[in-house]
């Protein structure tokens, strides 16, 4: 028996040896990579142009070579956009809008996430008889165009004296995000095993205690995803900011839009590009650091159903 096995091994060893060819990238793979690279280039062109333009002087821009690198790298435009660019009649730069955006961001985040988290938790894990109907209503609300509720919201915010200030913008952000976020949280909480809820109901029975001690610690993942999604969408918003912001509390995007649509005097393209970059940097930083969560967020926001 042992001899036989040995014999077999010898036979295998003495079999003709074909060295396996070193694995080559197939021509199809090369084709795909080349195609994808060209597409990637197309995606990068606007960013490249914006970046180099923001470092150019106006003299060089006027010469017209859009794609060439700055002959003199200067931060003049960045400084100008940040400190003295005009938005309407105020010429204090984008820093005003930046700080407004920051001030809008935090109350918006806290309000929108708090209300939708609690609502999602109550709808998913507690026995609410009309939960199904309410969810359907929220689902519809998530798709309603802003214009149809715009004037009533202006009147309502004016009535509670928040129209035209940061709180108005923050509250409207929270209101508009509520349906989508509630559905996201509700779908996430729906996957928590019913038995855990049963155990918690028997152990404590308190709605809030179960939320803070059991459910909230289990929400880490979805909370981060929603947080990223909300930060970018609040930061990038223009319509709510321009409608509810009033003169002194407009977010950065509104400043930027005012700057680029200005029709008097000569347009300083390098200032515009620097301003655009300054507006884009916060969400881009988030994107490049936690891109995967960002993608999860936008797809969760898109496919709520």
């Amino acid at each position, binding site marked *: 028996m042992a001899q036989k096995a040995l014999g077999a091994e010898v036979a295998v060893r003495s079999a003709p040896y074909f060295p396996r060819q070193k694995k080559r990238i197939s021509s199809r793979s090369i084709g795909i990579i080349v195609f994808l690279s060209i597409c990637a280039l197309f995606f990068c062109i606007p960013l490249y142009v914006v970046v180099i333009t923001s470092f150019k002087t106006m003299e060089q821009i006027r010469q017209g070579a859009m794609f060439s690198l700055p002959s003199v790298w200067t931060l003049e435009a960045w400084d100008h956009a940040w400190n003295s660019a005009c938005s309407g009649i105020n010429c204090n730069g984008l820093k005003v809008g930046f700080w407004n955006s920051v001030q809008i961001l935090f109350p918006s985040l806290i309000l929108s996430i708090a209300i939708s988290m609690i609502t999602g938790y109550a709808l998913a894990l507690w026995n609410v008889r009309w939960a199904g109907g309410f969810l359907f209503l929220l689902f519809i609300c998530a798709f309603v165009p802003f214009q149809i509720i715009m004037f009533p919201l202006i009147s309502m915010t004016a009535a509670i004296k928040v129209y035209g200030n940061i709180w108005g913008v923050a509250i409207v952000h929270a209101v508009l995000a509520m349906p989508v976020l509630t559905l996201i949280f509700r779908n996430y909480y729906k996957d928590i*095993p019913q*038995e*855990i809820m*049963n155990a918690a109901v*028997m*152990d*404590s*029975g*308190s709605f809030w205690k179960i939320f803070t*001690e059991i459910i909230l610690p289990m929400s880490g993942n979805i909370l981060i995803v929603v947080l990223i999604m909300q930060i970018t969408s609040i930061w990038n918003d223009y319509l709510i900011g321009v409608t509810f912001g009033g003169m002194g509390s407009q977010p950065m995007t509104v400043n930027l839009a005012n700057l680029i649509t200005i029709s008097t005097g000569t347009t300083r393209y390098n200032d515009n590009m620097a301003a655009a970059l300054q507006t884009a940097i916060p969400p881009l930083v988030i994107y490049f650091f936690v891109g995967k969560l960002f993608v999860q967020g936008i797809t969760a926001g898109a496919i709520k159903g």
Partner: protein
Amino acid sequence: MPQVSFEHITKTYGQVPVLKDLNLAINDGDFLVLLGPSGCGKTTLLNLLAGLLDVTDGRIMIGDRDVTDVDPKDRGLAMVFQSYALYPTKTVYGNLKFGLSASKLPKDEVERRIAWAAKLLQIEPLLDRKPAHLSGGQRQRVAIGRALVKNVGVFLFDEPLSNLDAKLRTEMRLEIKKLHDTLHHTIVYVTHDQIEAMTMATKIAVMNGGVIQQFGTPDEIYEQPANLFVAGFIGSPAMNLRRVTLSVANGKTEAVFASGVRFELSDYRFMTPPQDGTTVTLGLRPEHFLVGAGTAADSAATFEVPVQYAERTGPDASAYFVLENDLLALRVEPAVAAGLKPGQLVPVHYLKGKAHLFDAQTGQRM
């Protein structure tokens, strides 16, 4: 004084009735097993007792308290769930502690109880771990511990062993039995596993279709099944059930098979006098057969039947014979099973005094 009682319980989901006018009472210290196939209403009944579901009609008493409208946490119950339902973000210690969150106990009492339960269940070294880092058996112990610390009179178990492998299941079965023997809590335990029911229970309620089919001790359930459902559900291999005709003549009661075999029933304790010529169902337990010649003296009947096949299941063996175009299951000695050849005609005897008779119409025991 009954510790837990269900009085006229009705539960409907929408229009679908799950339980209808159900009555059940168990004593303090009883280990009640609710046994039945899936969908029989046993888990619904347990959840009604726990307060996780609301009754449609009826009353639930624990001690002399009507708890029908009491919050789950205030009913004085503890529950162990099928999936253990441990809080994933809390340590074992945190899990046990949260179990006490409704009771507002002083801190040192909480510590004392956790230490006591941890010691009892031998989970002291695990107190700082999260559930994800525990084995199935350890999770089970923690789940039981979380129930124990509450120091309540009534424990509910919802199929707690069904997620464990066979070996662990046997171990935990003994463990739960031991806990009951030392602590004397009242336990309501839901399972579909008849072995668990037979080994642990002091009382079994066999349920089917939302109705309690029989309520009694494990021995009563096994020895005196109240109806065809219980007879068929308890026992493995299942009881052999055959249509026969009663013959009452010359002071002798017999069951006559279609093939003409006569089955002696003179020692059967009828609840109502048997009527000659009625069709009934005869139940024969597989383990009450004897195979081979020479034991005819204590047998109620002897069948001459061909072997279909024999199979060995570890220490036991089952043999299947053909009787009137249907399989007849027998428990046999492994040595005997080894000697059986398919097709071979073998004399098979059934022991006297071990037969079960059921009304062919109602399915009730006669």
